[in-house]
């Protein structure tokens, strides 16, 4: 058996620096967008369940309670998640790196050097078009590391994609 790794002595802890969040928030229109999307998702789930509860005879007694609980979770999710997410979702592009932060309960920061970028895509689903939003995806040669920025203002997204593409093309090598 391998001996357990040594504990870090407190005096050898690295200097107290911290990673600050990226500078820019996404578009405020992302809040109604996320709300709409979440609400639609819950409706698809809850409406059929409600119909079954009301129509089908001989349903188990706990079914209305379960439905009520699910509806409560849905309301909390739809009200809380978009606000929370709006505070978390951030992005920043420097000449050397792209830096994003996303999530709400689980949060993730991703950093990729501009020199390793392979593609920059902007994408707009029907709902995103309605809210004049776009999603920017920045991929590297690693299948595990695409950086996605959801809920960006459409014009901001286009400008950013253009700038990134221009910088990336100026970098030689195959970025692996």
């Amino acid at each position: 058996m391998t001996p357990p790794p040594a504990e870090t002595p407190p005096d050898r802890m690295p200097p107290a620096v911290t990673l600050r969040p990226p500078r820019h928030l996404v578009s405020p229109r992302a809040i109604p967008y996320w709300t709409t999307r979440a609400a639609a998702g819950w409706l698809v789930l809850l409406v059929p369940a409600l119909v079954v509860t009301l129509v089908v005879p001989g349903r188990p007694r706990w079914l209305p309670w379960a439905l009520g609980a699910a509806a409560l979770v849905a309301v909390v999710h739809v009200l809380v998640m978009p606000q929370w997410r709006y505070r978390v979702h951030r992005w920043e592009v420097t000449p050397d790196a792209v830096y994003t932060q996303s999530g709400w309960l689980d949060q993730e920061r991703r950093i990729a050097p501009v020199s390793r970028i392979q593609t920059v895509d902007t994408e707009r689903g029907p709902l995103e078009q309605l809210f004049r939003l776009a999603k920017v995806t920045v991929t590297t040669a690693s299948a595990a590391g695409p950086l996605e920025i959801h809920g960006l203002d459409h014009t901001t997204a286009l400008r950013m994609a253009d700038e990134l593409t221009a910088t990336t093309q100026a970098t030689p090598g195959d970025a692996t």
Partner: protein
Amino acid sequence: MTSPTPLPAVSGEMPAEAPWRRLDRRMLAIRPVHQLLRAAVPLLVILFGARGNGQEWFALGGAAVVVAAGMAHWFTTRYRIGPTQVQLVTGLLRRRHLAVPLDRIRSVDVTATALHRLLGVAVVKVGTGRQERREGHELSLDAVSAEEAVRLRDELLHRRDVATGAPTPGAAASGAGAPGTPGAAAVPGAGAVPGAGAVPETVLARFDPRWLRYAPFTLSGLVTAGAVLGFLANFANDVRLDLGHAGPLRTAAEQVRSAPLALVAVAGAVVLLVVVSLLSVAGYLLAYWNFSLTRHPGGTLHVRRGLLTTRAVSLEERRLRGVEITEPLLLRVVAGARCGAIATGVGGGELLLPPAPRAEAHRVAAAVLGPPDPTGVPLRAHGRAARRRRYVRTFAGAVVVTAALVAAAAGGVLPGWPWRVALVLLLPGAAWLAADRYRSLGHSLSDGYLVGREGAVVRRTFALRRDGIIGWRLHRSFFQRRAGLVTVVATTAGGRTAYVVPDVPETLGIALADEAVPGLLRPFLEARPTPGG
């Protein structure tokens, strides 16, 4: 050897249009046989299913079509190596033209089944590093003569002037020895798949029969046993064989039925263990016999292995990003380990060492990456919060399972003993697992490498070149944020593409990422507000 030797190939002043070459003529015999074997089950089903009403002719006709298609492949396939790309034209009804730029070639695999080796030919597969492995989209030459395979590999990978290299003694010997008895393969280097080329290669690791003792601890026997049983059952079903009515089996079944239950259980377990062990050893021999890992001075690593079907994989060292040592629990108990390469353009991990002594795995890692062995450095532990998280998560699983069993017992669905068994086995098991998971957990930053280790059921130790890191992911779940921990993920272009250092104390994790790839995080760092108190 009367194989049609192609014209002298690539040299300094290449003609713009290189001549087209054909596959080896012996494929006219091999491919139809292979195709027939592949189509054997349906053909046999038709043959056995035909109860004398003329359906036999369908089977024969089908076989004829298969043979004709197999032979047509030789007539319709041409390839050539131009100054900038390899081209392959193939297909009878659907013509396909594949072209691969020479500078995109990342690996050249030489594979030969038993039949290929008997006739002295080998399949050459050209890997371009695209992750897509769709059938028909890889450039595969099935097959060329064994000597041609070596030449092609050198030509494609080392791009050196092959014409100057005289036919190598090794290749000549292998060509001459191949049609002999299959037993000849036992002599190292005598396989039809080429041994060492003209340039002397450094041997980094070579098969040792003592490694066979690790085979039963790999569980591959269980998979093989399942596959064999499945195949037999399927076959018996196809040819309408009723196992229950076969004489000896029926008597055996009756004897088992009359024996005491405990005896049957113990005997069954022993038999299963022996069978699985034997199959594991057989599988290990088939896959790794004659294994060797060598370094070509042209900057490639060669892995050769296989008893019946031989494989020779070449890996460019400039694509190498690190190594990974894997220790599944069973193998770890007997101090065994596997070693694999992290290389761009190779998904998963290319094998560098089959299950073998752990010390050997570390030795190979050191030899491949250049000493000192980066995977052998002492690792830094992740501290109290990470330890607590190991225990909480492991126990949560055990408690949920036990609680479910208690509930089931209370509801009368299950008898009372399962939850008692769970309580006795699962909870101490969880304690051990959590302790072991914490013991495994650690990371280190050495000169050129980020090293990380985690896992109890499968413990993995990776050493990833720092300049191979092409991005960071810093993940914090709700509970990790409360515990002040962060999971640091280094992304890279090869292997498993994401290498994880879980649950590092936040300051330490950020410092790790900052130090491993200097400058990348710098613009986003700021002094921490002085901790309260």
